[in-house]
């Protein structure tokens, strides 16, 4: 085990709960940060909607490219990541960004942001160290960090999504290094559906301005389908089916699957 580059960038601060020999964006280990053009667009739009140069918290592992895109809109970025390597990568590429490395549980409760971007979901905001926040607790913390009228851009992995249904190895048999706590089913505070998610956010005092179903994979969807509208329009439905099918086909080409995701 070796420490990565030990010259700590000056815009990076360790806040407690940090994971020094871990990365959430390590393709060789099968771990990828939220990335891609579409997610970037979603987040960018939320940032552009903020009047003036406002404060944005990017919580969880997001690709450097995505964060850079947000920074380019002129907002003041604070990144919260648990893995030192990931934080250092962002800190070096974006010297004007502030990077906090550690667990969500250690985020300063008093600090407020005009927007919180958590497109990777909430499951990678706690680290192995210290308090293991439930989904619900993580949501409360993030909402607590929102200034009045603030915006939350949130991603949630659908445990019954196509990507899970076609997987050869089910989630409960995950023996990778990242699976130190079983996810999903055992966390009662985690919403099971888009509908439940909407309800949960409503109870927390948030109004859902827009929601999308993403395909093929939660970390980097290439298709985002907005709610409503498609039910009556056969042509639109056909178009959506075709688009989603093609996206899944591309994503899974050459990968062994349990059943054909395009169906």
């Amino acid at each position, binding site marked *: *085990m070796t420490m990565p580059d030990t010259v700590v960038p000056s815009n990076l601060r360790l806040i*407690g709960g940090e994971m020094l020999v871990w990365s959430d964006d390590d393709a060789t280990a099968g771990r990828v940060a939220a990335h891609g053009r579409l997610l970037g667009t979603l987040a960018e739009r939320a940032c552009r909607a903020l009047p003036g140069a406002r404060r944005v918290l990017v919580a969880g592992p997001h690709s450097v490219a995505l964060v850079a895109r947000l920074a380019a809109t002129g907002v003041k970025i604070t990144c919260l990541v648990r893995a030192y390597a990931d934080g250092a990568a962002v800190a070096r590429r974006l010297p004007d960004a502030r990077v906090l490395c550690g667990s969500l549980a250690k985020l300063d409760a008093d600090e407020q942001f005009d927007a919180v971007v958590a497109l990777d979901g909430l499951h990678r905001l706690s680290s*192995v160290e210290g308090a293991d926040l439930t989904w619900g607790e993580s949501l409360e913390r993030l909402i607590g960090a929102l200034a009045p009228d603030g915006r939350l851009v949130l991603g949630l992995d659908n445990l019954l999504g196509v990507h899970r249904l076609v997987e050869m190895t089910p989630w409960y048999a995950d023996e990778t*290094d990242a699976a130190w706590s079983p996810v999903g089913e055992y966390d009662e505070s985690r919403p099971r559906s888009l509908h439940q998610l909407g309800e949960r956010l409503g109870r927390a005092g948030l109004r859902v301005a827009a929601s999308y179903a993403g395909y093929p994979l939660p970390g980097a969807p290439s298709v985002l389908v907005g709610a409503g509208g498609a039910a009556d329009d056969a042509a639109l439905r056909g178009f959506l089916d075709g688009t989603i099918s093609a996206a899944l086909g591309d994503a899974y080409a050459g990968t062994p699957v349990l059943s054909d995701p395009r169906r």
Partner: protein
Amino acid sequence: MHHANHFYGHAHVLARYCGLDPERPPRLHGYVQHGWNIGDGLAPGTPYVARSPIYLWSEQTRRRAWSLGRRNTVVIGAPWVYLQQLEPEPAGPASPREGTIFYPFHGWEKQKVKGDHRGLISMIKEVEEGPVTICLYWQEFQTRRIRRLYERAGFRIVCHGYRGYWWDKTDTRFLYHQLAELRRHKRVASNRVSSALWYGILSGCEPAVYGDPMVLDDEDPTFGGIGRIRRQWPELHGTHVDVALARELAREELGVSFIASPSELREMFKWPSPGDEPL
């Protein structure tokens, strides 16, 4: 079975708990975490036989160990907790606890500690009001230069015994000595968060962590060392800390809620039942 299982008489305490001869614990199948650890539960450099079970103190350590690639990890709590169960605090009027027992950070056979003992001594004198006992690890206890510094300061010096190395000269009463000493004192303090501190909190002392944490020769930086400990457990650092919170943390770090029954331990360790022919 790794010789670290015998450190401090851990295997002996566990054998007693399981109804077996405490002087001759059977071979233990796997590795028992022998000290409070911010790594994967094994001391750095422990030669690990693949797929052997590792018995860890806390759920926290288990999560961390898993992320570092360790599988076959079982949380059983610290041997200390089993000892406290076997030796409950005597009921009835007891002599009141008095003073502070201070554990200066120590090295071991392969790593020495460098630091300003004099500075630490003057800080202890400043902070502590009652009588002070200094508990030196055997290595510092035997180093006359260090021991004399503390003696000359007017402190009472104790040593809990020899920890044991490669099954040799293990003081099987080490933890018992430690428990008795901790129960005499009102406060337990150290210049670093350590097993002794956690043990002290669990056995009823008020904790404190202050003073120069000192430097260990070739300290493994991978897990972030002192800085990381301060960031993760800030509540423990200071001359006077929140005792209720400290007790909760100690219960977690020593895995109090994970204590196994004697038959569970015997099953995991591959130990015989009391009365069976020895293996």
